[in-house]
């Protein structure tokens, strides 16, 4: 079982790193629930 099973996930992405939609896609089968996801740009 995934260590994220049943956990609530807060995903903070960065445009030139890993954006949050990519994290959501990668974690789709993790069993975690995305409570908040956002991508920010610091430049």
């Amino acid at each position, binding site marked *: 079982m995934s260590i994220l099973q049943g956990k609530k996930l807060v995903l903070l992405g*960065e*445009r*030139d*790193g*890993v*954006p*949050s*939609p*990519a994290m959501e*896609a*990668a974690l789709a089968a993790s069993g975690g629930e995305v409570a908040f996801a*956002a*991508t*920010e*740009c*610091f*430049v």
Partner: protein
Amino acid sequence: MSKASVRASAYCLCHVPELALWYGNTPHAERAAHPESEFLGQLASAVQEYDKAVRYAPNLAYIGALSPDDLLDRPQPWHEHLESGPARNGKYGEIIPEDEFLGFMDICDVFDLIWLEAGFAARVREKLAAHSLITETMLHRLEAGHEALDISGAVERGEALPLYCGGKVIGCCRRGHETDHNLSAYELLVNIACKASGVLSLLHLIKNAGLRPEDIDFVVECSEEAAGDVCQRGGGNFAKAIAEIAGCSNASGCDVRAFCAGPVNALINAASMVVAGARKNVAVIGGGAIPKLYMNSRDHVKKGLPALENCLGGFGVLLTPEDGVHPVMRLDCLGKHNVGAGASPQAVTSALVLEPLQKAGLTFSDVERYAAELHNPEITLPAGAGNVPEANYKMIAALAVMKGLLEKSAMPAFIKEHGMPGFAPTQGHIPSGVPFIGHAVDAITAGSLKRAMIIGKGSLFLARLTNLADGASFLLEGPSAVSGAADLSKEDIKAAILDVLAELAGEMSKKESAS
């Protein structure tokens, strides 16, 4: 024909630490929330003065007084190891000081929104009169100035924002409407500064191209500001307003917006117009963003560094029909980040780098230099935003490894050889690939560079309309023969042969009749 010539480029910086201190979003928001903030006091002491800004290597690389590769030889931090001699002017443009820029903003203001104190206006008039690109007509637009009491009165009544120079109020920016937030003093100050930095860039561009203002047919503006009122908040248009002040009487214009991907998208739009024959001399112009000044200053101050985000950036690129002389921008192999492409770094890099290379029949190593997100790392690293250009180069190299086109062990060498250090101010759209165009054009012309890729990426999600980002890219190469043999189809060749045969037959029948 699917190529436009890059005839000239221009890059300017407007050194405005007092606009940054008062109206950069980070200190501006802090002042509203905590007027007695300790941070604001510290920030006021963290200024990088003009005499240092004109010796700061990344700034000099931006205006063309140094090349980006020169930065590799300079010890870091660059802000501590300043160049020995100051350079206000470079090959592509200048670093204008704040007093002159405030005067220039007044020149660019057509609604009497900027008021300057009379003594300041007189002093700055003398300086601007000595500027080689500011004409008598422009200078005539500079106001005689106002009484200090009129300025303080407008500020006290909440009708204007004060403007500072040398720590003193030297003028104000008035609001354009009593209730419309889009015409507030703050929005208009931001827009006039964007316009003025755009005009300055256009003036340098026209000079660098060896043209007259009247020769410009169209201006495409690509900053990140919105010009409009309550009923049409982003109506525009900066382009035509900029062209007007620069004396481009035969030009019209329009704006292109795509956050930091705006410049590359604007260049593609402009090149397409040129290639289609719709317009001839098209200038792509981007002015600077006041809100982004001192954006990361909280971290700079915390770490005892100078607040380096003190310059508005501006740039211009002039595109013309392919002339066989100047380097060209290719339109047959553009990078485009489609809606369905996905957001993962490899999906974005595939769309912007791999796919255009495949379209062009090239591989990663065929592009000698990649220009992607050229943010100055001395600004971003202390703020925890990383070395942005390096992150992009790593991703390009990693994708090449994934595709089996590069050995993993060769990644560091690829990044060093095909990348470059960041040298642009964190002005959003300004660092987005375009600062290298001038350097690339010079190197291609000199024969020291064969091909470069310009990559722009934009954070569309910041507008809360979509979670998508955007990106676009294009290749810059040396000029091909004007005949464009490679672009001719079989039908073109057939038609040309038939024309010649018909002409020959006509000549022969004339001769026969004469004899």
